[in-house]
């Protein structure tokens, strides 16, 4: 079914790292910013107000995760649309390769890069955020994987239909960034007025934020089964739809 997946994934990873800004843009810069921000506010706020502390302690890792996932979505959407515009997808179509294989390969590449970025951040965090946070790394990784797959599946869907590379980035950003405002990362969704609260419940990121934040604070998985189910549902719908509407050219 997914013949050629491992080779294509490995190849796409190599090709990505050959891009002039490939590795630097996706891995080095986020980690550097993380370290710089950490040096500036990390140690001071350790003893500062509780609100700031809780943002550093919970909000920041969750925000970082979500932002990385969103940038992975934008990059996925852009690459696929460049491939579509350049006729690369069309050439791949004239083989026994299936669209799912192509998308999966790119998602795997994004997951690997995301993982690499996060591992570096965690290592940097240990050094620059001496607040005594000991998050459950294994559970958080699982939660992150679930969230990222779900968020990336939205990217799948956008990538399947965006016609040109020029549109890809803005369309992706237009869909993804507004979600940030509703997802409860900056304001708890319980504090929203009812109408906006309803919107927040429709936004897939809300469940990712809830899951990631909860797991980071060592809440049991059983309290987040709803989040996992919602994210799985988003993933199922988006992947099914994207293979239906996938445009080769």
């Amino acid at each position, binding site marked *: 079914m997914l013949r*050629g997946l491992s080779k*294509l994934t490995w*190849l796409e990873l190599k090709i990505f790292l*050959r*891009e002039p800004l490939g590795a630097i843009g996706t891995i080095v810069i986020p980690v550097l910013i993380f370290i710089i921000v950490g040096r500036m506010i990390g140690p001071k706020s350790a003893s500062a107000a509780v609100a700031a502390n809780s943002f550093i302690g919970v909000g920041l890792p969750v925000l970082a995760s979500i932002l990385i996932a969103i940038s992975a979505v934008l990059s996925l959407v852009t690459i696929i649309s460049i491939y579509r515009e350049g*006729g*690369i997808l069309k*050439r791949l179509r004239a*083989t*026994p390769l299936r669209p799912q294989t192509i998308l999966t390969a790119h998602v795997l590449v994004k997951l690997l890069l995301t993982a690499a970025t996060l591992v570096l951040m965690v290592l940097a965090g240990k050094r620059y955020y001496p607040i005594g946070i000991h998050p459950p790394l294994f559970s958080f990784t699982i939660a992150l994987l679930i969230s990222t797959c779900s968020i990336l599946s939205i990217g799948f869907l956008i990538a399947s239909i965006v016609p040109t590379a020029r549109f890809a980035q803005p369309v992706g950003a237009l869909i993804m960034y507004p979600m940030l405002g509703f997802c409860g990362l900056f304001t708890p969704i319980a504090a929203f007025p009812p109408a906006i609260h309803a919107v927040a419940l429709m936004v897939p990121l809300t469940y990712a934020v809830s899951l990631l934040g909860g797991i980071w604070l060592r809440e049991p998985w059983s309290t987040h089964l709803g989040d996992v189910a919602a994210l799985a549902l988003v993933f199922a719908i988006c992947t099914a739809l994207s293979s239906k509407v996938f445009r080769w050219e």
Partner: protein
Amino acid sequence: MRPVIQVSGVRKTYGSTVAVDEVSFDVHDGEIFGLIGPNGAGKTTTMECIEGLRKPDRGEISVLGLHPFRDVYKLQERIGVQLQQAQLQKRIKVWEAVDLWASLYRKKAVDANHLLEQLGLAEKRNAWFMTLSGGQKQRLFIALALINDPEVVFLDELTTGLDPQSRRAIWELVRGIRARGKTVFLTTHLMEEAERLCDRVAIIEHGRVIDIDAPQNLVNRHCPERSVVLATDDANAVERFRAIPRVEAVACNGSHFTIRGRGDDLVTEVIHCLSENRIRVTDFRTILPNLEDVFLKLTGHSIRD
């Protein structure tokens, strides 16, 4: 024997534009079949319908006994395709592309190194796609089209944009494909390419097939005119030339004469006349019609317009 490709009554529209209409032809085992016509005539659309990349609105297509759209993955296993204006990832290396393609097919791939060698790409195996010249890219696409040892090879505007030298080299490669017993289906708007390469051609214009045959048969059928151009100072030349059987017109421009007539015997008759009357000539050449003239005759305009 059943034709390798059977196309009958195919129609394809894009919105209100009819790209291809009532197109029918057969392609036989082991031949090089060319679909020729100007840009926008419907060549690529027809080819992509046969490859299973587009779904015709009407009509029947069978390739190797398969339905191109329903059995598209089965079909892809058995055919090799080179697309017009295709690209690969900019920074994919030549050997990586060939290696990836080899992994996509169930069937055991042909020896990639040997293939690259044959196509003159052995030295470029570590080069990025974006650094290849037009001819090298085209040869790489041929390599990808041949990697699964296909039974039918599709080549769309194979040599467009290449210099004459690369073009000739690629023609030689295509003849090599036929020599290995494969069937080749190609499109081109270059009449010279069709004449030199194709066993049979279908002339397509405005989405319709006008005629199908071997290039020479098409020329004989539609353009029986022959011309001989010669230079002589003989004072009685005009009368003598007019007396040659089958000659229809003799034009004279100083010492240069153009003798027009019909049929393959015209040239022999002219030579016979020259020798019989001991006419001394300082120049002699024949102008034979070609596919270009056939196209002009059939459509009323040149293929380049």
